[in-house]
């Protein structure tokens, strides 16, 4: 620092100081609400587990992180991969991927339909799409259970129609998880898709038809590339909560079809292994980030870049 500061320079540095002071409350809230809990988790993941839950403060241990991926043999000291954990992580990734795919497939026609209504009726359709948000997630999940259980709406209807003779076992399978998550997260796909389809210049669609592209080619070469930002936004909004889903697999998947969220909950509850739970939580976060980076990169390479 030079001792010979000019007056305006002084004023500027005071300005900067003031600016920091003024944004301090916001920064504090961000730190306490977002970074704080994450740091606590990170800290806990590196501590030894307490005997009845909690952690032993100040006692460093990498056991939590170790147990995410590996397990020790009960009798000798050899260790192998924690296949139970890894298969749950793998299943969570798969289910989230297929949930995202299904919501795109179901959400696109829905959003397209809404976006092509006259402007006055569009708002009504958007409003209808958001109605499920008024109801608690748990209740919506139980409603889904009523639909897909053995004596439920779906099975009864199929039997009545003569499609099947005995009820399909959907409850407590991955299919139940997939159906539940697709149902719950569909609006999160429809809304951003609608927003980008609504902005689509339909004269470009006409230009496509004029230049010998049939309906499928217009969809593939003109509509989808142009609404790619909406597809990306929707996929992010669906994939993230899917990967961490807790209530839906708990109610519909039963004990056998756990997802990451349930596994983490177990460590903080019955498992009494907080460091492991903390390490798993951070693993989940890392998975989300890696998946997003891959997805956004691939999606923008396939044509969304030029909008």
């Amino acid at each position, binding site marked *: 620092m030079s001792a010979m500061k000019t007056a305006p320079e002084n004023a500027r540095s005071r300005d900067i100081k003031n600016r920091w002071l003024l944004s301090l409350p916001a920064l504090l809230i961000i730190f306490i609400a977002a970074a704080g809990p994450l740091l606590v988790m990170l800290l806990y993941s590196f501590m030894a587990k307490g005997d009845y839950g909690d952690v032993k403060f100040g006692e460093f241990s990498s056991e939590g992180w170790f147990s995410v991926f590996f397990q020790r043999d009960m009798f000798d000291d050899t260790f192998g991969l924690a296949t139970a954990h890894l298969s749950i992580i793998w299943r969570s990734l798969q289910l989230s991927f297929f949930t995202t795919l299904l919501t795109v497939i179901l959400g696109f026609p829905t959003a397209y339909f809404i976006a092509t209504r006259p402007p006055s009726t569009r708002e009504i359709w958007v409003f209808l799409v958001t109605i499920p948000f008024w109801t608690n997630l748990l209740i919506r999940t139980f409603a889904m259970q009523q639909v897909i259980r053995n004596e439920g709406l779906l099975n009864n209807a199929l039997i009545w129609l003569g499609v099947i003779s005995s009820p399909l076992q959907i409850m407590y399978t991955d299919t139940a998880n997939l159906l539940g998550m697709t149902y719950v997260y569909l609006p999160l796909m429809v809304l951003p898709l609608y927003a980008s389809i609504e902005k689509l*210049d339909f004269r470009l669609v006409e230009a*496509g*038809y*004029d*230049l010998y592209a*049939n309906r499928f080619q217009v969809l593939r070469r003109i509509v989808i590339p142009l609404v790619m930002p909406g597809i990306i936004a929707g996929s992010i909004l669906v994939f993230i909560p899917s990967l961490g889903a807790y209530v839906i697999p708990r109610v519909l998947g039963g004990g056998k079809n756990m997802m990451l969220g349930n596994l983490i909950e177990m460590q903080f509850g019955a498992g009494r292994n907080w460091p492991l739970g903390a390490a798993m939580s951070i693993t989940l976060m890392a998975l989300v980030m890696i998946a997003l980076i891959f997805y956004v990169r691939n999606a923008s390479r396939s044509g969304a870049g*030029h909008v």
Partner: protein
Amino acid sequence: MTALDGINLTIRENEFFTLLGPSGCGKTTLLRLIAGFDFPTTGEILLHGEDIAPLPPFKRPVNTVFQSYALFPHMTVAENIGFGLKMLGKPAAEVKARVDEMLELVHMVPMRDRQVSQISGGQQQRVALARALAPKPKVLLLDEPLSALDYKLRKEMQIELKRVQAETGITFIFVTHDQEEALTMSDRIAVMSTGSLRQVGSPWDIYDRPAERFVADFIGETNFLEADVLSVEGDRARVRLASGTEIPATFPDQTTPSGKVTVVIRPEHARIAGPDSASVQSGTVETVVYLGTDTHIHIRLGDGALFMIRQQNARSGHCGITEGDTVGIELSDDVAQILRD
């Protein structure tokens, strides 16, 4: 509601044909019917004898240059131009060759790999034209393609379009509300209003021999005079003007004028009568408007009507006529046209 009614129109091959009319007259609807974006409730659209009215746009050998250009923003200039051929399943080498040829035609070779957002409005116009021409359509439809360009660029593109049409030999159907544009570019013009055709003919026909008041009024400035038909002989009628002067007049085909009629005379076909020339009518000069190349002289006639003369300023200085003068009007030969009522 009927947008178009009783349209019966034959467009010739290799013709630069213009649909001219005010906005809302149905010219764009007619174009959209030919393109296949809208379908007629009744009637046929024949292309080389085949009815294309029921075909979707992607099965018609017809391409459009859109008013908004509608270039694909996620593609380069070359990809835009090649799109139609690619959709037709042409091999990549053929598409590339044709794209290069089109870029050459519209002078856009250096812009080949630009994104369409990186080129100017005039250049986008050229790309839109090249894109529509690339698949070698039988008919090219142009929906007010020059309306977004500034005056100078528009003039340039008018000549450019004419050149491209001559070079490619493709039938152009051009929609515009700009009468000057229509007169400059067209082989034939169809004037439309309120969903029907008012007159179809060469620019000369439309301008000098308007068939009805709407056409005469819409295109250029016109003097309307009341007259009585005295006799009809061949394709000329003799009419008596309000002043009592008798002049010959032409009339629209398939009509036989009689009784009271309206006669139109273009302002540039009339002059201030000299001391020894025959005046058809006289009046008082009301206003003299100097316009640089021309002078407009508005004359109040004896019967109260206003008559305008457009006089070219062949010499510098004042034209010598001032407001309040009493003058006679002299007509060039064979310039009066009787309107259909």
